[in-house]
């Protein structure tokens, strides 16, 4: 476990001093891994992600229990820009790019801040060229105002800009949300490339388990503010509950049942044959 980069230990997050959003969350990511965090709406995935990136402070929430250890330091409740400078980059679900800035300026913002951040473990310092290598589309659009980009282009720009802060850990919230399947596949492939090339750890929060598990090394499943299941991506992909939960026919039809419902169903099936 020497190459453990991130470890979330028994974390509890409380909103407005009253509402407990997640409780006893345990999660780890090793250097160079792609880890995914699955769960249905409201399971607490995003809260966990925002706790790691320091953003919950802006939403009147606090980590009230447990530790978030990143590269050996507890960063629970640190301000977002501190987390960013420590080497954590977040690609949020909304608020992806500065719409009034050009593509180039968006990327440069990352670079500016990246000067103070830690260098990607083992990787060389990235520059614009490096980003254009992963996302050639952006080079073409370099002078374009980011507000006019398509959804896929925005996502690429957001990832590119985040990468330029030289992170060691890249957090991505809902990579696939609202994007065409072709684009999602393209992005997923790029993420694998990025990991391979830069050795960056990626934590992916996804509702689309298929895509996530296909590129991830390890996966966690959240339900009602707790981690209920974890394991190697391959094993999860083969796990019956996950099959039922995310990949089954119901899921394909757009109906995603909760993990608990799936468990109950499975139990009933065992009892009643």
């Amino acid at each position, binding site marked *: 476990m020497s190459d453990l980069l991130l470890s979330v230990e028994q974390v509890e997050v409380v909103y407005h001093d*009253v509402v407990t959003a997640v409780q006893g969350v345990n999660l780890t990511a090793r250097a160079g891994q792609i880890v995914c965090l699955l769960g249905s709406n409201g399971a607490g995935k995003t809260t966990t992600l925002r706790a790691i990136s320091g953003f919950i402070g802006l939403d009147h929430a*606090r980590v009230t229990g447990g530790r978030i250890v990143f590269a050996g330091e507890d960063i629970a409740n640190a301000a977002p820009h501190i987390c960013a400078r420590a080497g954590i980059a977040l690609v949020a679900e909304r608020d992806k790019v500065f719409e009034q800035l050009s593509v180039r300026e968006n990327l440069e913002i990352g670079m500016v801040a990246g000067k103070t951040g830690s260098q990607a473990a083992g990787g060389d310092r990235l520059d614009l060229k490096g980003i254009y290598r992963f996302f050639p589309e952006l080079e073409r659009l370099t002078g374009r105002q980011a507000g006019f980009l398509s959804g896929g282009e925005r996502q690429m720009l957001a990832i590119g800009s985040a990468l330029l802060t030289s992170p060691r850990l890249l957090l991505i919230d809902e990579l696939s949300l609202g994007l065409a399947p072709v684009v999602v596949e393209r992005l997923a492939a790029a993420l694998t490339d990025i990991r391979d090339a830069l050795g960056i750890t990626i934590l992916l929060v996804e509702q689309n388990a298929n895509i996530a598990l296909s590129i991830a090394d390890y996966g966690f499943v959240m339900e009602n503010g707790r981690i209920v299941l974890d394991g190697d991506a391959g094993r999860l992909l083969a796990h019956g509950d996950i099959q039922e939960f995310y990949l089954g026919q119901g899921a394909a039809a757009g109906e995603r049942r909760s993990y608990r419902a799936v468990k109950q169903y499975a139990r009933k099936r065992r009892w009643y044959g």
Partner: protein
Amino acid sequence: MARASGYLKTGYGQQLVLVETRMQWMLLALLAAALLALPLFASFFLLDLAGQIFLAVIGAVALMLLTGIAGQVSLGHAGLLAAGALVTGILTQEAGAPFWITLPAATIAGALLGLLFGLPSLRLKGLYLGISTLALHFIVVFLGQEYETIRGFSTGISVHPPRIFGWELYDPAAWYYVLLAFDVVVVLFALNLLRSRTGRAWRAVHERDVVAEALGVSVFRAKLSAFVISSALTALAGAVFSYYRGFVSVEAFSLFVTIQYVAMVIIGGLGSILGAILGAIFVTMFPYAIEAALETTGLAAALAGYVFAINYALFGLVMLAFLLFEPDGLAGIWRRLRDYFFLWPFRKTPLAGGE
């Protein structure tokens, strides 16, 4: 007004009751007795101060309804006061109208101005709205000044004390009771308004007008009614002011007056009628308190030429302090104090994780 706590309401009727407990009745009676007896002891200076406070309360309650409750920013408050006063002055000068004509006329004029300047609120929000109401101020002052110049009232328009059945309202103590009665009526009116459909609509619009619209509140009606009612009350306050002081002059309604009223609702605590009253008391007494403080500490001699500047600077400082450290204002402080005594010796324990 203190609210009861610690017991359950068992019917909707109880929600609508203004005074809930016997204790509150007693306190209110005590307060009323004190207020009624004050002129028997107070010097002229104190009576006049009380009169100023009573006048300020009307204006502050009006602004509280608009800004604190309905959430519509207005920087035209001094303009509306001026409008009410000017209508009174012009009617007395040109037509010799008695108070029972001028007061309603001023109120109606205020309502019409409110309608006119509430219209932008349907399209404008927040700061933009504030600035557009600022235009109201400049326009009223401009018109008032034109009138004063053209009619040759270069030093202001004189308004004679109101006559009621041949009896002239001039004595400070008499004014005290009249203004007190005015305040009681205005405060009761405001409190009742807030419990009505209109009041609830205002609060809803304040929270989020889009949602309010979706819930079936007519945003159009709510915003306009807030402007109209608040402006009518404000203009009425201006008219009463002109009778109390016996004159009208646009110079008496500078932009600083607007700021003072805004300060009253902030310092008092946005969203509460009690806050408006406390704020009016605080802001009106503030300069006198500073002068008294300077004098008792012996600093008056050293700072004589600077009293105005000191007052001004400290006023800004206090307003700033309230905004930064006590956003709930005096009403918030009052609630905390009350809860503390109410619950003593059982200290309130905050919810887990709270501070």
